[in-house]
């Protein structure tokens, strides 16, 4: 128990030094999050038409916060159309007890009590022009209304985006803000998810990243990726791992890679990089990824990498020629 507390304090300390927080962040270099309408085909890049994010407000922050969504409607030039615009996506905000701590909330599939906690706001968006390529603001929320989680050192609000109907793809971003009309970051705030569904860049020169934080008990990882369409390479790096290429999934396909982690990677952040291929160029590619440890526990992806972006530390050794 003492060890868990120590780990929690360490994690909280790390989080406390990070800046905040559009979602996705600049470090992630991910263009948009993606959620398809409930009638879409998973092979279009969304396995379950649901995406859950947890927003962390540090306990030192007591002023109201707002959760803003860019392009919540589905019908803009950003979104992915299939036939005609017919998609409605619901965004719901949860706080209070078990918003995060309920086991169903931390799973990848929207089953059981995944909408645990107190619903604090909910709105469903269609193709209305006023919700396209503009910001919609949820809140204000009293930070105390989020679920307090000691190991994160703050209060957590859960945001579930779920395709209600239709088959188009809704591309959007979040921002945890202190202002209803502008994106003003919450100092020390962060956001994380256990499964990431996002749009890949069309530009093969762009490299996207996600930053899972690996807990101290983890000795091996299973990385699952879905519907990557064999589009380039997925590479894992850390302070002690220059790069490990993972198997890339095909169309409508799950692929699982398992590998051991180094002791230096326990209680630290990995950098999972997504390198698109140049040829043939695949446009509007959406994909899903999640990571579990040897116990099956999902490892959270923080939008602001805990401890910063891990950089492999090169070191030159020398020996006499034999």
């Amino acid at each position, binding site marked *: 128990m003492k060890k868990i507390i120590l780990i929690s304090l360490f994690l909280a300390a790390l989080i406390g030094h990070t800046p905040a927080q559009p979602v996705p962040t600049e470090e992630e270099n991910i263009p948009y999050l993606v959620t398809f309408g409930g009638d879409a085909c998973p092979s279009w890049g969304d396995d379950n038409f649901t995406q859950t994010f947890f927003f962390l407000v540090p306990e030192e922050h007591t002023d109201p916060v707002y959760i803003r969504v860019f392009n919540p409607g589905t019908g803009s030039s950003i979104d992915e159309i299939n036939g005609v615009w017919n998609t409605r996506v619901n965004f719901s905000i949860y706080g209070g007890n078990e918003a995060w701590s309920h086991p169903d909330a931390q799973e990848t599939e929207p089953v059981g009590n995944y909408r645990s906690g107190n619903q604090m706001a909910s709105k469903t968006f269609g193709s209305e022009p006023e919700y396209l390529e503009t910001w919609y603001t949820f809140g204000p929320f009293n930070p105390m209304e989020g679920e307090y989680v000691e190991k994160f050192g703050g209060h957590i609000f859960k945001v579930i985006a779920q395709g209600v109907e239709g088959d188009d793809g809704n591309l959007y971003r979040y921002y945890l803000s202190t202002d209803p009309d502008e994106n003003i970051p919450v100092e020390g705030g962060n956001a994380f998810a256990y499964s990431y569904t996002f749009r890949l860049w069309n530009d093969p*020169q762009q*490299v996207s990243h996600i930053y899972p934080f690996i807990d101290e008990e983890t000795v091996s990882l299973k990385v699952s990726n879905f519907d990557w369409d064999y589009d*380039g*390479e997925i*590479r894992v790096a850390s302070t*002690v*791992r*220059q*790069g*490990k*290429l993972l198997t890339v999934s095909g169309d409508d396909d799950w692929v699982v890679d398992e590998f051991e982690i*180094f002791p230096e990677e326990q209680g630290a952040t990995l950098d999972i990089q997504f*390198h698109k291929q140049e040829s043939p160029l695949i446009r509007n590619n959406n994909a899903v990824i999640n990571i579990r440890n040897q116990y099956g526990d999902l490892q959270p992806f923080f939008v602001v990498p805990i401890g910063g972006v891990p950089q*492999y*530390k*090169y*070191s*030159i*050794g*020398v*020996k*006499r*020629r034999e």
Partner: protein
Amino acid sequence: MTLFTVQGRLTPDIFNKMGKRITLTAAILLCTCAAISQEFYSIERLPVSSDRFDDFSPVFYKNGIVFTSNRTRNFMISRLTMEGENFFNIYHAGKEEEEKWSSPKLLSRNLSSNYHDGPVSFSPDGNTIYFTRNIPANDGEQARLGIFISRYINGSWSEAKPFPYNSADYNVGHPSISDDGSELYFVSDMPRGQGGLDIYVCSVDGDAWGPPVNLGETVNSPGNEKFPFIHPAGRLYFSTDHNEKGNLDIYYTERRNNRWINPIALPGPFNSEYDDFGYVASDNFDEGYFSSNRDEVDNIYSFFSTFPVFSNCDSLQLNDYCFVFYEERGDVDTASFYFEWDMGDGTKIDGLEAEHCFDTTGTYLVRLNVIDKLTGEVMANKASYNFLLENIEQPYITSVDTAFAGETVRFDSKYTFLKNFQIDEYYWDMGDGTKASGEVTEHIYEYPGIYDVTLGVKSVPDPTFGTRKECVYKTIVIIEEK
């Protein structure tokens, strides 16, 4: 071989060095001293040595020496050999002050027989004496020589016990016990030797002495090898008359790789045209004694070396400027990265590892550039290593490895590299008995063979470390003249 009689019996005299000169026509087996030899020793006749009597084979004992002498013990009573000469006895002379010696006295009446006694050797603690003595024989039989052993117990020397390999059929004598007491060297003319007197060694086997082992033809010649002295450093000194003039000269040999090397003659002033023998040296070789009849009778000479002794020298390691640089963490993704190494001397190498030979010593800034194959990004100078390439810290001998006999071989010390060591002088031991000094020297080997050339350097004294010494040796092969 000169004989003398004891109680009417003939005995070969292995005490008497003034034997018949034997002119040898056979090849000289032992390595002889080269012509060019610098003098690095100073000697003087010991004041306790008599002008009239023979004094020889001193050994260190209680701040003095114990030696063998035929000086008169008692002017009132004199026992003589059948040739009318005094018997040899074991004497002790103490060094009371610097250069001041006490008058020699019998070491002990208990160790004095009616015949010859001595030379001797002491155990390291000084409480056991091994000495040569005539073995009484029946009328008409030769009184052979044997080794006897006595222990110093409660202030006196015990009754001497015979060495188990003494024999009535041959001589055994001139003992020298090793520093750890585990080996006893001696001479004998027992059958199946190399001829004349040979040197043997017995090793301790439990509570007894193992059987005598002949040191073999590398050490023993058809002539006579006598007066062995095993030094604590492992060198075996002895004298042999196996030369053209038949006089005794002092040689040394030592075991390398469990083999005795070819004996090396001591240079002048140890060896002369007379009999030189009975050499002993202190642990660091800086001082010692030997015996010689260069002044008509056998006298004891003390010596001190002006040539530093270099012991436990390492074999020369060749300076090697070739290295392999690598990414130390080793978790390298060769599928999506490759490395470009800038070696700091203008050389660039692509690859996971960079194997490179630098031209010379110096400081090189080795830099690692990483190229990401996926992005094409060149990550310059991701790591750097300020690599200090120094020569191996050692005296360094530059010379050919192989040369012809009769050819001038040059030895150079210019690549010597020793940190915090200001060299005062360079000393060369050419491996054939020749010594020299200076940064550079030249030498001509007369005979084919394998020689270990030693370069020793002595530092300028400093207040912290005093005078320090370092040395290396290099093996060179001398082959037949062209």
